[in-house]
């Protein structure tokens, strides 16, 4: 067997064993179906209400992607400001340190009672979750740029934009992609938590509803959906990385 097929097989085994372990656990634990529903009941939920689930998934993903986009733009602007005008970092860094270190769920409560049930607090929470890893990695990536190469371009009177496009951006790219692996999943987590607090739609709202109704089957169905989304996000990052850095791999 070729080595490159090992991970594919490993993931196949993982996904194949989930229902088996699930059924086995029900069999040995004797937990009631309300708490631990069998896969068939969860499947029924997914099958009976596809439109309803898809709508709530779309709501959550919309918030996550929009917040993610905002976080990326902000992180890029701030990272460039840090690199081009080091004074900015000195003054902005204390703020980022403070905001980053307050647990974001406590800020979420404040945002929701202040701004109410609309898109704004949810976007802010998503931005809070994914902004900092993006910023940290972008700054690290820009700083990792080859100073010798920057000097070479400086001796050619290259503009700041040229140095950014030709040197800073390519050298930050691996760091940036590494941040996506965490931050993209983080944006989904942030959106769900925001809905959890106070919302009338979205996957987070479904979780709260299902918990108060003792609907284990719905909880598990939402879990499957959220898990699939986060995994898809992760793998799309990996594929992107593999394609962008194809030059690294032996031909």
């Amino acid at each position, binding site marked *: 067997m070729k080595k490159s097929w090992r991970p594919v097989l490993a993931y196949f085994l993982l996904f194949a064993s989930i229902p088996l372990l699930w059924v086995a656990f029900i069999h040995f634990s004797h937990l009631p179906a309300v708490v631990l529903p069998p896969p068939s009941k969860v499947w029924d939920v997914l099958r009976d209400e596809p439109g309803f689930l898809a709508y709530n998934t779309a709501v959550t993903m919309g918030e996550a992607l929009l917040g993610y986009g905002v976080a990326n733009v902000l992180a890029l602007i701030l990272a460039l400001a840090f690199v081009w005008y080091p004074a900015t970092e000195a003054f902005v860094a204390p703020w980022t340190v403070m905001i980053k270190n307050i647990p974001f769920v406590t800020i979420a409560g404040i945002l929701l009672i202040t701004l109410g049930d609309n898109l704004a607090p949810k976007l802010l929470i998503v931005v809070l979750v994914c902004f900092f890893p993006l910023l940290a990695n972008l700054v690290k990536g820009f700083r990792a740029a*080859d100073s*010798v*190469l920057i*000097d*070479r*371009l*400086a*001796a*050619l*009177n*290259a503009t700041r934009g*040229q140095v950014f496009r*030709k*040197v800073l951006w*390519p050298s930050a790219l691996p760091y940036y992609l590494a941040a996506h692996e965490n931050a993209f999943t983080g944006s989904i987590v942030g959106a769900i938590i925001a809905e959890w607090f106070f919302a009338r739609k979205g996957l987070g709202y479904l979780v709260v509803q299902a918990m108060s109704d003792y609907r284990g089957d719905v909880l598990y169905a939402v879990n499957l959906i959220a898990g699939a989304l986060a995994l898809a996000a992760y793998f799309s990052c990996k594929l992107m990385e593999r394609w962008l*850095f194809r*030059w*690294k791999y032996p031909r």
Partner: protein
Amino acid sequence: MLSQASMRPPVVPFVDSPPRNAIRIQGLGKSYGAVPVLEEIDLDLPEGEFISLLGPSGCGKTTLLRILAGLETDWRGVVEIDGAPVAEARRSQEIGIAFQRAALLPSRTALRNVQLTLEVCHRSGVFDPERLLREFGLGEFLHHYPHELSGGMQQRVNIAAAIVHHPRLLLLDEPFGALDELTREALWAWLAQLLAVTRQTAVLVTHCVEEAVTLSDRVAVMSARPGRIHSLLDIDLPRPRTGRLDEAFAREVTRVRRSLYAAVDAGGGGSP
């Protein structure tokens, strides 16, 4: 090597108008804080000359090169390239620079790394990157990435990227310092041959006496702390000089080395 079409006409010195100076340095000084790095540097370099800056570490030879490249600020004195301030030469992209560590983008092939220079430069009369690399013996490696090339090949790509826009001034900061001896000697021969055709003015920073003697028309021996020019030596040997084991070459090496040791003794405690 490079074709006739890409050659610059040789400089013909007339009795009443000597070749003009490519570089004029007068009373150059530079300090880092209170620490003087360079002091009272005077140096004139005629067009087409190859000069080496030789000296112990800490003598400011790299700083001097960086000032010529327009990469340093806050220095005192006069530095002119082709009669204009150094910033002007940088603006007109008359400078090519190669450092000890090859400044190549890992995500670009050899060819695209050379093209990088031209993406930034807007000059006419540049070399064709592909032909340049072929003439540098890298025809089979055009589409290889830096990590697929040996150190010597990377350095040839690096120098190709430094001269592809045909600058009047070539600045070399120990470009062969990290290479093994045989590769280094091969690249000396290659560079000497290249410059015999392009006739660019070149400044080489080195700590290798043989390298300086092999390549230079003149050697500026520097002393440290603060960096000064201790002596200027003409290297009067017929070219090509590479691979020579004869007595004249050995004599020149000894003469330069003696001057270097004197410079080390004169300096403020630098080590060779």
